[in-house]
């Protein structure tokens, strides 16, 4: 059962990467990287149980914290003008009159 869960998490990671490559906006990519990180924490914990070495849980805790700090860092330092959405992007979403 643990091996099946590991495979499922791995597939979810691949799906997140696909969204990360194909995401139209910047924030889609940030979301994909964050989801990838959370799934990695789960993957490391499951791998620790599969290989019989519970020391991997320390790595899982560290990576959960690092993932959080990285996303906060990305959002904090992307507050400049270049990351704002120009009105050209908004035209495609407006309703037809």
């Amino acid at each position: 059962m643990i091996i099946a869960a590991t495979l499922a998490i791995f597939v979810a990671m691949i799906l997140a990467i696909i969204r990360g490559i194909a995401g139209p906006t910047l924030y889609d990519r940030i979301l994909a990287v964050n989801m990838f990180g959370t799934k990695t924490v789960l993957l490391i914990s499951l791998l620790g149980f599969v290989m019989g070495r519970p020391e991997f849980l320390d790595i899982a805790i560290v990576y959960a914290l690092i993932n959080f700090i990285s996303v906060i860092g990305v959002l904090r330092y992307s507050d400049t003008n270049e990351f704002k959405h120009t009105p050209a992007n908004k035209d495609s979403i407006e309703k037809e009159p």
Partner: protein
Amino acid sequence: MDIVINISSGLCLFIGSFLCLCGGVGMLRFPDFYTRMHAAGVTDTLGSAMILIGLMIISTGFLVFIKLVMILLLGILIGPTTSHVLAKAALHNGLEPLLGHEEDPDTDNKETTS
């Protein structure tokens, strides 16, 4: 007793991995950033909670159990916070959500006038 532990752990792992897979599929299929954030945030937190509970049931020692509890608490605290921060930053920087089309009351008028 053994079989109860194995079955309950297997059930929790199954539910957790099913939720994570749903989240992954949702990331690909939803139309807009804010809807994808629902998929990512909700299924991430609950799926990882279920998987960690499933692992806790079959954990081998006391220290392993405590570490899994810590990862669970961290995940529950960090997951919703990240979603909130990401959505707030996106809205602040001008990304508009995709709004639905209402039933246009003008269509009847157009048909009568044209």
